[in-house]
């Protein structure tokens, strides 16, 4: 060490100069993570991208041309959007008022645990449960028939609404927990300040909470949307996978495992990614029109 110092009598050592730029021994700790991202995300993504440009017919854009010329294929984009968009919006709209109530509760942990359960159970188990609950002999139909609202069982499942309900059930906890964290992140004294200045509850929400929440809600929307857009199990189990709920991941699944056309499947996956990215970019683009700083009372 002293030799280094003598050799470079003036100026900081290499180590000091690196440290000044934030690079030191601890920086090496990111390496496993980088390797994981490269191996499990970047490489498969690039591989799939290349694969999508090598269709069976040999042309560069053959897969994409086929996708966008066949309504049975390009229709899946809108079928999925028709599910994912309203589901995400509804989840967000339900989550906000509940989060506003829960933020004042003392025992949030129990509720949080209850809400995390559907996430851990996964979509398949929820779909199974729905099959029984909404089935002809399930509680739903029996209860409605018992009180005389129905004379014969109705079929909620095997269609758009089956998938819709399943997506709300599995997506809500996620949306809610994210929303709650943004809502509780707002300094409560801001609400008090608004109240003492004469703002009623509606005005406080409109003028103080909403503008501060919008950036967080945009992120929540994006994450929930991406999750809903990649729906597969419930679209098959409680939906109508050949018709109303033929979502884009079903198209990709069929290309890959029924036609064994991995190149086409990759192309569909790429298109799916592009649609998600488009929506996310659009939402986050709108977000930048709003205030995005800290939601606390600045430095205190």
């Amino acid at each position, binding site marked *: 060490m002293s030799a280094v110092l003598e050799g470079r009598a003036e100026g900081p050592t290499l180590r000091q100069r690196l440290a000044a730029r934030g690079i030191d021994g601890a920086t090496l700790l990111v390496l496993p993570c980088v390797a994981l991202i490269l191996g499990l995300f970047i490489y498969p993504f690039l591989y799939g991208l290349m694969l999508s440009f090598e269709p069976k017919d040999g042309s560069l854009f053959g897969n994409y041309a086929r996708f966008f010329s066949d309504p049975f294929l390009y229709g899946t984009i809108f079928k999925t959007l028709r599910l994912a968009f309203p589901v995400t919006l509804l989840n967000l709209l339900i989550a906000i008022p509940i989060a506003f109530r829960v933020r004042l509760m003392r025992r949030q942990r129990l509720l949080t645990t209850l809400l995390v359960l559907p996430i851990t159970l996964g979509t398949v188990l929820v779909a199974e449960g729905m099959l029984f609950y909404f089935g002809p002999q399930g509680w739903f139909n029996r209860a409605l028939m018992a009180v005389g609202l129905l004379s014969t069982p109705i079929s909620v499942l095997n269609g758009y609404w089956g998938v819709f309900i399943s997506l709300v059930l599995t997506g809500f906890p996620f949306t809610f927990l994210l929303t709650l964290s943004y809502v509780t992140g707002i*300094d409560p*004294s*801001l609400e*008090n*300040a*608004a*109240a*003492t*200045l*004469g*703002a*009623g509850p509606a*005005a406080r929400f409109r*003028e*103080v909470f909403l*503008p*501060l929440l919008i950036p967080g809600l945009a992120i929540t929307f994006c994450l929930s949307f991406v999750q809903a857009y990649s729906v597969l199990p419930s679209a098959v189990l409680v939906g109508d996978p050949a018709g109303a709920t033929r979502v884009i991941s079903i198209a990709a699944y069929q290309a890959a495992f029924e036609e064994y056309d991995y190149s086409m499947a990759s192309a569909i996956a790429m298109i799916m990614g592009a649609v998600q990215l488009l929506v996310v970019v659009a939402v986050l683009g709108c977000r930048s029109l*709003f*205030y995005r*700083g*800290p*939601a*606390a*009372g*600045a*430095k*205190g």
Partner: protein
Amino acid sequence: MTVGATTFKQLHLQGVRREFDAFTALKGLDLTIERGEFIALLGPSGCGKTTALNCIAGLLPVSGGRIMLDDRRVDVLRPEERGFGMVFQNYALFPHMTVRKNIGFGLRMRGVPKPELEKRVDAALAAVRLESQAEKLPGQLSGGQQQRVAIARAIVVEPPLVLMDEPLSNLDAKLRLEMRQEIRRIHQSLGSTTIYVTHDQEEALSLADRIVVLRDGAIRQVGTPAELYALPAHLDVADFMGFRNRVNGELVGMEGEDALLNIEGTVIRGRMRAASAGKAAVAAIRPDDLEPTGTDSGIPVRVEAVEYRGRGFHGVGVTASGTELHFASPYPLQRGAAVRLGADAGRVLVFGDAR
């Protein structure tokens, strides 16, 4: 929106209580505040002063008692219906609004027309000398500037009552002094009735017309700064007012108004402040009033430490029984030296132990 009247004669707190589960934060506060007064609620942390302020503002419901503006009951109103201005400890500026929008918020909520709103916001900006910062966001301002925005936002609506919750506690010492003068100046120019919560006795003494000392959720003493400074009614108020020396002694008699107190064999004179059931009593003396006598009267101490304080010296002495006494000395003293300490009878307060 119904907003409280902008003028009143008196604010009455009548037996205001506040309980948190099993804990009673306010044990029935009775206080009358005249219009235009600057009242400081002074007390150590946990004494209930912020709770009292929040109850007046309507941010906490009272558990009992009433708050009256003249003969109108306000404790049943929601905070937005009371129309009191409040300055929060952390300022609570809306981070997404410019300084101008922050200050104009209250006026906008009251439906003040735009031209008048702009005029009043400009006047408020001028009052706190922030004209040049009007279009900035709070996050771009320094702590002192944010504080001034918070004050401007509270006073621009011309509230009948301005509530301030330790507004200076987040500022550094120099800024605190400047802002203190600023608050005093604004209060004098607007004449707004102000209730100011603080734990800093210097702040309370310099700002307030009257000081209310709180302890354990109850009022200990109410008085002008001069009254409280010279004649605290309780030992703990005295403690708060800088009477750092508290010496146990024995009452041996009275001479006119003066009590004679025997402290470790030396009899000193003091003003009786609180009666004693028995003979035990405590003398409270400010360090600045206790000086070496230079004669053979006074309490004998051995000098433990001497500090240079610019205008003089601050000494710590120990009596024969081990009681520490802080005193002032115009000349330096050697550590270990034996001196005798005395104070004017008017500067010594004697409190009986019956509290």
